[in-house]
């Protein structure tokens, strides 16, 4: 049988598709979203109580708490949705978060008078087991894996 050789399949990468998480919220992303949701909840609850009950006591710290809460909520939602636009926003919020925890962490150590009360990011998140410092790093690592995969998929398709 000399059938004209079928055009060689553009050998799809032999990734076992079932084993590969298909969404940013699956696989390790499941853990990431869980921890982000936890921080979204605790940061917004903390900021809400602080701003509602004693805003004048430490306005800068409380506004930063509220800002952190917004960033965590944004990261949680965008990591859960996971489409290309959401991933771009997720990269932005993780980067903001990393910059925030480094800046506020340094600021809180340098100028203690400005922070009579702690924020989530004070002392690089030491009050939260330094999870706020580690979390955006893992977030960005996870998201970078995704953009890499999207790029290879696009090149194999074309």
């Amino acid at each position, binding site marked *: 049988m000399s059938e004209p050789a079928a055009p060689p399949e553009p050998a799809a990468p032999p990734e076992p598709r079932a084993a590969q*998480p298909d969404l940013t919220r*699956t*696989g*390790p*992303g*499941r*853990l990431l*979203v*869980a*921890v982000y*949701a*936890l921080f979204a*909840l*605790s940061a917004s*609850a903390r900021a809400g*109580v602080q701003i*509602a*009950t004693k805003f004048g006591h430490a306005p800068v710290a409380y506004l930063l708490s509220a800002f952190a809460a917004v960033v965590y909520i944004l990261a949680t939602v965008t990591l859960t949705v996971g489409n290309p636009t959401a991933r771009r926003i997720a990269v932005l919020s993780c980067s903001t978060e990393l910059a925030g925890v480094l800046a506020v962490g340094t600021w809180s150590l340098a100028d203690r008078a400005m922070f009579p009360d702690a924020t989530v990011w004070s002392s690089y998140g030491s009050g939260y087991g330094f999870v706020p410092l580690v979390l955006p790093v893992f977030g960005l690592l996870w998201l970078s894996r995704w953009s890499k995969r999207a790029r290879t998929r696009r090149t194999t398709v074309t």
Partner: protein
Amino acid sequence: MNGAVPTTIIIAGLALAGYSLLMTALNRRMTVPLLAAVGVLEILLLVEVGLVVAKLAEGQRPASLPTLIGYLIATPIVPVVAAFWGLVERSRWGPAVIAVAGLVAAVLMVRLHEIWPIIHV
């Protein structure tokens, strides 16, 4: 109030976290025994919430009542959400989510004590 319940929760939470992380390391998915363990933790947390509410009903107040109420609402929700989020994941990362819930339960008990020292650990 003696500290038997919160102490039990801390030990149970840490044990659950350890076992769950072992499951993740061994590449296991969520199992029924793990889910049952989350159920036990949830019951313990509800008992603790009940004990704290009883203290409030006696007329005693912590320094920051809104904070305490926030913790009382959030505490029993954590294992339920974690169980759901872990169950929909069909990989080793399901148990990892449960590990977070176990750790959080332990941390919440310490924080409850800080918010209201009348609650012993």
